[in-house]
Structures are given as C-alpha cells and as structure tokens.
C-alpha cells in the first residue's frame, strides 16, 4: 500500500517535471543581474521551454500547462495581462501543426525550427501589445531579444534535455 503511494507520488512528480523545470527557468530569467547588457536584452525563456517540451514530451506539457505557464509569466511581467498566454497559445498551435517537420530530426533542424516559430510568436505578441497600447513598440528591442533567445536555445535545451533523460521515466 505504502509502496503504491510512493510510486504514485513519484510518477506524479515526474509528470509535473516539465512544468516545474520550465517554471524554475522562467523565475531564474527574472533574477536581477549585474551585467547591463543582459538585463536589457534577456532570452525569452518561456518560449524556449514550451517549444522544447511540446516537441519532446507533448504528453507531459499539455494545453492547460501552457496556459498556466503563460499566466505565471504574465503575473511576474508588467506587460499587459494575457499577452504571454496569447503568445504561448500561438506557439502551441504552430508546433502542434508543424512539429512533423522538426521532430526526431538533427538538433540543428530543431534549432532552425525554433528560430522560425519564435519569430512568429514574438511578432504576434508584439502586434497584440502594440494594439493594446495603440502605438508600435520598439522593434529594435524585440529584434535583439529574439537574437538572444535563439542564441540561448541550445543551452536551455541542454538543461531541459538533462531533466528529460535523467529524471523523467519513459512511458513503456
């Protein structure tokens, strides 16, 4: 009985690991740093995490997880509430329809895929927030943020791959 309970708890924890690890990286991305360049242009960790998990373990990172994840990002951020949720839902739709082109392909292909989908996602969010404020937000900041996000993807995916390979059991 006790073993069953332990197994259930471990299984639940493992199923929640994609969301928990993504939340950890998200919170970490808001920690103040002493490097001025990094503070102004940080990688958009949320998009990277959603992309990784939807490609590798869509069974553990479903629509509701994405919604919750976007909401947490909206709470920490001062940008209009709902804009992060919207961006992540856009990414969800893109990945679920296009994952066949990137899934189970060499890492470079997945990286290119991320670069393409992150651009569309960030532009969608930019458009939504620009409409919200009735003025165009600075594209230069968005461009640098996008470049940093794409450049940081290998590192983020390396961390998440470690979680996936070492801490999450395969469904057999």
């Amino acid at each position, binding site marked *: 009985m006790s073993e069953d309970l332990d197994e259930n708890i471990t299984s639940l924890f493992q199923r929640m690991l994609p969301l928990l690890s993504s939340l950890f990286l998200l*919170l*970490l991305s*808001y*920690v*103040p*740093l*002493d490097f*001025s360049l990094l*503070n*102004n*242009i*940080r990688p*958009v960790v949320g998009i990277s995490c959603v992309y990784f998990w939807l490609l590798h373990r869509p069974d553990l990172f479903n*629509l509701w997880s994405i*919604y919750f994840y*976007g909401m*947490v990002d*909206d*709470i*920490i*951020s*001062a*940008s*209009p*509430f*709902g*804009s992060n*949720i*919207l961006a992540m*839902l856009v990414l*969800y*739709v893109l990945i679920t329809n296009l994952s066949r082109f990137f899934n189970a392909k060499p890492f470079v292909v997945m990286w290119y895929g991320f670069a393409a989908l992150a651009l569309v996602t960030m532009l969608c*969010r*930019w458009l*939504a*927030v620009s409409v*919200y*404020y009735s*003025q165009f*937000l*600075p*594209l*230069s*900041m*968005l461009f640098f*943020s996008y470049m940093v996000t794409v450049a940081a993807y290998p590192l983020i995916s390396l961390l998440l791959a470690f979680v996936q390979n070492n801490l999450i059991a395969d469904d057999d």
Partner: protein
Amino acid sequence: MKRRRSLYVHLSHIRLLAKKFALVILFLSAFALMLVNKTDTVIIEKTSTVATDVISPAIDVLVIPAKMIAKVYDYFRDLKQIHKDNVRLREENRKLNILYDRFKSLEIENKLLSDLLNYVTPEESEFITARVIAEEGDAFSHSMIAYTGDAPVKKGQVALSDKGVVGRVERVGNAYARIILITDINSKIPVMAEKTRIRGILSGDNTTMPRLIFIPLDADINVGDRIVTSGVAGVFPAGLPIGKVASVNKNEIRIKPFSSLEQLEYIKLVNYGLSGILGEDDETGQRP
C-alpha cells in the same frame, strides 16, 4: 467487435473536438484578460497584486545564489580597480569636504532668508530601502519587483537610486511592490530642464532612453542639459534629478537616465506626502 471499434472512433472524434474547443476558449480568455486589463479594473489589479505576492518569494529564493555567483565574479574583477578607486575617492572626498562646508553656510543663509520671507517649508520626506528581486526590460515592459517587507508603502511613491529617479510604485502587495521604471511605456513624468526651466513630459516607450514630449517648438534644449522633475501634478516633488539630454532631433528629444536602471540592487521608496492626481482614496495600492 465492430461496434466497439466504432465507439473508439466516436470517442476519439469527441476528444479532438473538445481539444479544439478548449483551444478556442483559451484564446478567447487570453483576449478577454487583455481587454479587462485595458479597462484598468480594480479586480484585475488586486488579483495581480496577490498573485505577485505569491510568486515573488520563489524568485527571492533564487536571487541569493545568483547574487553570490555574481559577487565572486565581481570580487576578482574589482581587485584591479581597487587602487585606482582609492586614489579617486580620496580626491573626491577632499572636494566633498569643501562642498560640505559651503553647503552648511548656504543652509544657514537659506534658513535666515526663509525666516525673513515667512516661507513655509515642505513636509519632511520618509523613505524605506527595498531590495530588488526581479527585473525586466524588454520590448514589452520595463519594471521591477522589490521586497518591501511590512514597511508602509503607497502607490505612486517615488523610487530613487543613489543617482536619481528610477520610477514609481505601481502596485503594493503584502511584502512586495511593483515599480514601473521611467523607461516603461506607461511612465509619464512632468519634468523640466534644470537650466532653462522649460517644462515637458518624460514619456517612456520601452526603449532605454525615454522621450521628452510636450515641449515648446522653439525650446532651447541642448545635448547634455540636466532634466529634473518639475513637480507639476503633485506626484513627484520638484527638482529630483532624472537624466540628461542624450540627443536632440527634429522630431524627438531623448533623455539618458542618470541611474543605470538595469543594475539596481537596492532602491529607495520615498514618501514625500504628495498624492497629486493619484488621489488619497486610491484603495488599490495602499498598505497601512
């Protein structure tokens, strides 16, 4: 057997439909949240404040190890600088001592003249020092979350660094406050050129250098001019340093803030006893 298979097909169809339906609902709810947020209702503000209070401690925990790593790096980087800094600080201290003597004599002179004019001195300000636990500065917003503990903080209070104004308190939770930086798109501060006293509004646009707007067309403003708060609207007192003019073009004037907004570890939240256009009865952002 055949019946069972058709039931399976039927169920998978329903599941697919439900998934699509859920997606549409979630999209609509995201739009609805943005729309409600736009109307600036108290409910959204209060909910968001409570949620920030719940999540902020988690970031707060991460700040300590991150700071430690940064401190070790800084220690080795700064070793080289220590000797140079020492010489520079001694010189600076000598100059400051001279200035201090001058300041003392001016203070006495000012008091005497104020007494003569029957001038009513403004209320003394109160401040607390708050630790920054989260920062963001991208194309979408420029803000920070600071740990204020149970100190009395009010919405609209001025956030200062050692060099000048960095922003204002936007929301106040139980132990954390959200500060909107002067570079944020929602920030509009009445300012003036220190030398010429020309007034305008410092308007953030989510870039690192806010714009100076609503100034006369023939205004005499040049690169390097100091910009300070004007005190109009009664939220910020007059004379607080903000930045200096970085560029003057035909269509816009850009201001470079004195403070490095992206490198703030601690900030001062000052209560000047001014409520201005924010109003005294604003319940959304007050903690007794």
